[in-house]
């Protein structure tokens, strides 16, 4: 089973040390982020059990948290995850059309990944950027005022990056 490198383990211990002794469970969310980053962009049951063992808590306590937040992926995802906001303000500004457009263009449904493993489409609730609606999150960045053209550009950009990065 995959394990953190010594360097990442140090990082984990650093995170744990931020909280009072005996309250290491508080480190759960940042450690899960780290694990997701390290182990292929998603959290397998094995990864979650591993995190539980690091924090000396029951696996069920990790599942409870990991299933709650949409930031954690519980299934393998593509290299680029489109997290499109579908809450009221974004919806009024056309997020439904954006989602439909992405579905058509990539040939996948919400929650699915393209066959080439490049793209995953997710819908999420308000990301606090309603002023820039409709919007989505891509990796660590927000993409705002989305239009079909912008989506085309983003997809192209991703495909390009995928090639250059390989």
């Amino acid at each position, binding site marked *: 089973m995959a394990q953190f490198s010594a360097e990442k383990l140090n990082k984990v211990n650093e995170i744990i040390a931020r909280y009072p002794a005996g309250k290491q469970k508080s480190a759960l969310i940042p450690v899960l982020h780290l694990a997701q980053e390290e182990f292929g962009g998603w959290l397998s049951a094995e990864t979650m059990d591993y995190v539980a063992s690091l924090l000396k808590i029951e696996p069920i306590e990790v599942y409870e948290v990991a299933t*709650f937040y949409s930031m954690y992926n519980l299934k393998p995802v593509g290299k680029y995850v489109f997290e499109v906001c579908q809450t009221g303000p974004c919806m009024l500004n056309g997020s439904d059309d954006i989602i439909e457009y992405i579905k058509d263009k990539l040939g996948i449904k919400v929650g699915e990944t393209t066959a080439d493993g490049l793209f995953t489409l997710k819908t999420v609730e308000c990301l606090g950027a309603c002023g820039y609606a409709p919007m989505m999150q891509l990796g660590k960045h927000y993409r705002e005022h989305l239009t079909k053209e912008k989506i085309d550009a983003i997809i192209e950009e991703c495909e390009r990056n995928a090639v250059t990065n390989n």
Partner: protein
Amino acid sequence: MSTIYIDNKQYEVKAGKNLLEACLGLGIDLPYFCWHPALGSVGACRQCAVKVFKDENDTHGRLVMSCMESIRDGLHLSVSDKTAKAFRSQVIEWLMTNHPHDCPVCDEGGSCHLQDMTVMTGHDYRRYHYKKRTYTNQYLGPFIHHEMNRCIQCYRCVRYYHEYAGGKDLNVFAAHNHVYFGRERDGILESPFSGNLVEVCPTGVFTDKTLREHYTRKWDLTTAPSVCNHCSVGCNTIAGERYGQLRCITNRYNSQVNGYFLCDRGRFGYEFVNSANRITQPLIRNRTVEAVDEAVLMDHLRALLTNHTLIGIGSPRASMESNIALMQLVGKENFYQGISDNAVFVEKRIVEVMQSGVIKTASLHDIQQSDAIVILGEDLWNTAPVMALAVRQGVMKTAAHQALQNRAIAEWHDAAVKELVQQEKGFLANCTVSSSPLDEISSSVMHKAPEDLARLGFAIAQRLNMVLPVVQLNDDMSTPAAVIAAALQKAKRPVIISGAGYYNEALIRAAFDIAAACKATAEEVHLAYVMPECNSMGLAMMQASGFENAVLRTSRVNNVTAIVLENDLYRNVPAQIADVFFNNCQHCIVLDSLHNATTQHADVLIPAASFAEADGTLVNYEGRAQRFYQVFVPANKNMQESWKWLMKMQPVQTGSAVERSYHPEEVLAMGEQLLPRLSGITAVAPPRNFRVNGQPLPRAPHRYSGRTAMLSNLTVSEPKPKQDYDSPFTFTMEGYSGMPPSPLIPFFWSPGWNSNQAVNKYQEEPGGSLKNEHAGKLLFEYKQDATPVYFKDIPEAFMVRHEKWLLLPQYEVFGSEELSAYSKGISELSPSPYAALSQLDADPLSLVNGSLITVKIFEQVYELPVRINAAIPKGVMLMPAGLAGMPVMAWNSWVQIISIRL
């Protein structure tokens, strides 16, 4: 008290409560989901909205959640306000968007809080026409059925299971409109309190799987108030029947005993009543079954009961009435307890201590209110489960009180309280032989042999009262002794708990000494001793000698007819001793409900009614006498209460012709005559001719259906209803339809409240005592001025012996109790036999978990798999007590390991 105005009407209500509690307490209907009187408020479901106004001139008002708003003097609120009503009906409409509307096939239907609340809010038309989300359900073990689609996300289940009961394997997953309440994967729910989910969940997500096997709607059940048979706590239950079969057990609220909750042994152990192993027919040895009816039986008994010395063997699981009737029949000097002398010795001490009246007995309510609890040598979790649950509440509540000091936060504000408390706990010292789930909430944990625990107890007492003799302890015990003593010294309401589980009398004395020493500093001290069985205390109060004495008697007299009352002696004494007894007796009459090793020895075997077919009284660990009522008349008229059979034998024995029937209260009155110690026991419940407005009380609700058709396969005319001459109840729906007094509540129902939440209507205030509560009759009296006489003889410290182990019982919630073990689910969860040892003892022998060891106990040899438990003290071996197929062990004797297979 505060004055508040609800819809412009003035009310006086208790300060400190929230508005929802106030409204419900006043009898005003207000819908709610996430609030529960035992769990407090979290304001999660938004169902309980009302409008609150600044003052009488404010016409606008604002919406608030009534469960989250404190009572303020002069507060104006409206329940009937248009906006509030519209809001409430919208909330339920949202909650129902994904609900499958499958009431006709849902086990909750007819006793469903969600149905009641939906009707109450007036939501009757579904406007949401999208797809409903669906879930995969889980296998949760033999007791609980899971149907997640019905969930309305109130979070009560996890709050109960996790926070209230301390279970770890049920949780909530995911978010938004797809939250999931369940385990991480299929599997048996680990908590022995899982059955309460059935009542805590307001919908049909968690339902009783045992009921499902013979399903009946609540309105079709014939129910009676009953008392749990499966340990000495005496939780109050409601037992329900249809078609002559016992179908389910639900909780019967009693503010002093079980409150809202039961354990799974109590809730699901009832199926022994329907067991194929029931004795259905009087049997006389060497006669054909068909040849024996009641007349033949009585005729046959004449020869056995006259010209013979009668020896009566009483029972810790039979009612007081049955034990008293037996004593009356055989004579006081010929009545023996059907338990070993060791047990009698310990239990006698317990009665003596309680009788002295120096310390108050601890009810479960007292335990929940306690601010420091010491458990000395009793494995509560397994011997008195709901008491362990009460201990947990005591610990949690104390932490909450401490955290809330000088803070303007109400106690019912559950989320805020939890936030403040974090991991803090009230003081609990769990000093037992082996590990227990209570350990993790204990401030002080000690695992020692019983003698050492007793020494620890005496040492604690000595630290509280310097006049007492000093006990020399090693460091590993003297520090905890000081810590525990210091905590007790600070406590206002300490509770000390011990029990008869390890057959160690020194523990009883030590627990008393601690309690007595606490009196100097505490406001109130309570003491509890757990007893082995449901009526052990009642039998012990009859102060007869133990079984070994009966064996001695039979060896001196040669014309003995023994009468064994509802007692499998092979569970209480080693087989050799029981064998001698049966050899010595010329005749043996056995009354019992199930076939067992003892009934095999009967010359005459008489079928006894189980609790569901009987009226009777049980005395719980506190000395609280409680009446249980017959639920139904079995079709088989041979199944009669043992006390009825025994009373019928009296004229046969004396040769008098007059035969008349007796009633439970008459038998109890006989008991008061025989044993002044029992005085007052007749006040246990209202007399049999008790009536309300001249009417008896119905066992069936007014919606009971099928009455004229139920037996139409046998006869077209509806048979005459069965009469009950022993209680104020009818077996039908006829009778007084209002609220009966508290010991006579056969079901909780109120107009608009079909679920068990109707209990609100029966209480003085939500979570408080029942209206005019009569919570049983306490037989021990607290004597304000009694001065404690301390016990001073302190046992020697436990000494490990070379290659020998002190054999002690390990009790199991599922498996150690005799009757419940005949229920399918309970036997499924009951462990197989094992021998548990300390790591320190296992290592030198290279034993690992599962290694087979052969031990010799008396002349018997047993091969058992090893379980290693680091908590067990060195030199002690534990074996499960009372498992089916496991003989009685010589507890407290020294055993040897004669061979090992690794």
